[in-house]
């Protein structure tokens, strides 16, 4: 047997990759392929002998006003969470990047919401937002701010969900920014201060450009996960009131597990996949233009 060293190395490489690839294959690629197939049929959980429908599900999707409402809500949510969340986590990351003793405690505190279950956070915040027995409503009343009731008010329900999401994910982005900040070499700041830069200048002309790849990463990851938001919406509002917080994934859930029309749910899911894919590619092109 004359197996060359390089093909033996290849075999070993594939062997190490195999577990990951198998898991990906079974839990990611196969379901995506299955959903793609299902979107072209009328398969429902109950109808086990589906018919091939060609484009019927997709044309139904395009004409479905409740779907477009879900898209609109998801965009509103993303535009609320991503910019604000990114800016806040960057500011907090800069704040906890100082060499003060005990700063790690603050980093831990800010990171705690990230590792807490989203469902539980959502339940607690639902109580806080309750206009009759909630703490938040109570304190806001002293500031003269009374509303109908955050999660019960069609106009304030989505901002409430956005608030909770920003609060929850801030720690994660903060940690990523922290890593990015700490990888900026001191010599750049020294050079800038020699040239007479104040702290605003060094932030704008040194920190931000150096953080470009990190920023790209954070924005793209935030955007992808914002498009897929479900837990908070399901627990806090179930998509209400009046469908004002129904996001795309909440809508997929409705058709998959409430009306059991799995094929239509798959159609919506495939549509979401395409949208996220296209937006990600565009973002990477735009933000990574100079680096590469």
């Amino acid at each position, binding site marked *: 047997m004359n197996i060359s060293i390089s093909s033996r190395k290849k075999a070993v490489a594939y062997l190490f990759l195999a577990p990951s690839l198998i898991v990906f294959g079974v839990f990611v690629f196969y379901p995506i392929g299955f959903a793609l197939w299902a979107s072209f049929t009328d398969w429902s959980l*109950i109808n086990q002998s589906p018919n091939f429908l060609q484009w019927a599900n997709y044309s139904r999707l395009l004409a479905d006003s409740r779907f477009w409402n879900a898209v609109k809500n998801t965009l509103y949510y993303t535009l609320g969470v991503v910019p604000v969340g990114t800016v806040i986590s960057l500011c907090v990351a800069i704040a906890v990047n100082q060499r003060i003793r005990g700063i790690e405690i603050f980093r831990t505190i800010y990171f705690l919401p990230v590792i807490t279950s989203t469902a539980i956070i959502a339940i607690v915040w639902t109580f806080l937002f*309750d*206009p009759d027995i909630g703490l938040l409503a109570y304190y806001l009343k002293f500031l003269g701010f009374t509303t109908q009731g955050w999660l019960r008010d069609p106009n304030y329900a989505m901002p409430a969900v956005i608030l909770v999401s920003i609060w929850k994910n801030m720690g994660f982005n903060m940690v990523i920014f922290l890593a990015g900040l700490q990888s900026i070499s001191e010599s750049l700041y020294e050079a800038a201060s020699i040239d007479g830069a104040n702290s605003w200048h060094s932030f704008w002309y040194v920190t931000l450009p150096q953080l470009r790849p990190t920023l790209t990463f954070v924005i793209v990851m935030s955007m992808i996960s914002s498009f897929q938001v479900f837990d908070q919406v399901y627990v806090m509002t*179930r998509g209400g009131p009046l469908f004002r917080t129904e996001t795309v994934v909440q809508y997929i859930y409705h058709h998959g597990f409430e009306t*059991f029309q799995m094929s239509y749910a798959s159609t919506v899911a495939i549509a979401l996949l395409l949208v996220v894919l296209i937006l990600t590619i565009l973002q990477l092109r735009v933000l990574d233009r100079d680096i590469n």
Partner: protein
Amino acid sequence: MRKRVFIALALVLILIMGTTCVSAKTVLTFWNGYTGPDRAVLESLVAEFNESQSEIEIVMDIQPWDSLFQKLLPSLVIGSGPDIAAFASENIPQYAAAGVLSPVDDFYAGDYLDVDKLVPAAVENGIFDGKHYGVPMDFATLLMYYNKDHFAAAGLPEEPPKNWDEFKEYLLKLTNAPEQYGLAIAVKETIPMWPILLWGNGGGILTRDGEVLIDSAETKEAMKFWADLVMNHKVSPIGLTGAEADKLFQSGKASIEIVGPWMTNGFTEAGLNYDVAPVPEGPAGPVTLGTSVNLVLSKQAGEDSQKREAAFKFYAFWNSPETQVKWALGSGFPPTRTDLLDHPEIVEHPWVPKFAAVAPYAQFYLQGTEKFREIETSIFVPALEAILYGVQDVDTALDEAGVKLRQLVK
């Protein structure tokens, strides 16, 4: 020699198989959602059944209703579901139409139980497409809970309101939003409360025979009356879920709530000074909501004659007078039988007789339609919210709902 050993072994084997076949217990898996205070009573009654005989064993799996509903239909479709399940009767059409339930007409035709003594509405609503699919497991009605301290503080008589005019008068005096609301009425994720107000005027949403009532004149009239009270006089917060409405009454921030017998323990523990009374009568006469959790048999279990027989025996045990008395006393629910109202222990119970007394005029909500869940979440609740949030006026919202409903049930 070998031949004899062989015969001996064969005989022993047959003996063993024979005895195990004879003494094999029929095990029935049973899924339900009684996770609340009634769980203990249910478990003790099922244990009693299991201990009283050695042929049948019921193994229960109790989970919250929403998890149950997510898993039940898929698991029944692929054949790995339970033998028996219990859920509210409005879900029966969806499951029966999916072909996963076994009709139980032979239970009613046989002499397992004196079925004529069961609450008629609880039995009727287990019928779909002319066949019985359900056997009653529980039966509940909604009554008006009222806070006696609030009545006294507002200068109102001790007697609760009896009709809509009095109801309106009381609510206006009791309401001092947002510190105190006269009524805590839930719109979504709740045992239906709004439909009672519509039925009170002879309106409704959809009858069992498929007649659309949501855009009728009576429904619009009722809706206008109540929407005015809620929106303009703030007698109740808008957009409450069932759990929020319960909390509001329990914390003393609402004076009245229309809800079922399961809340009595919670309200008593909270130290509320309350009582229950029939829901005030509307122009069309007294009415309230009735609801029944039914026991259903899976198609697979139904085809196994041993399991079928075992299930029927359990159904008969559950609905027997002895078990129903224990169930009623332990859970606060009225019994599923109509012949227990004079039972000495039942008569003495503080709540059961009152809930049972309104059974004759209890109506059920959205029965007999497979699209029940979709009607509720996509047509009725959105219309209700659109009206109460001021997005649409009553006539437009209900007309649109009527169009959508006719389209859906065509």
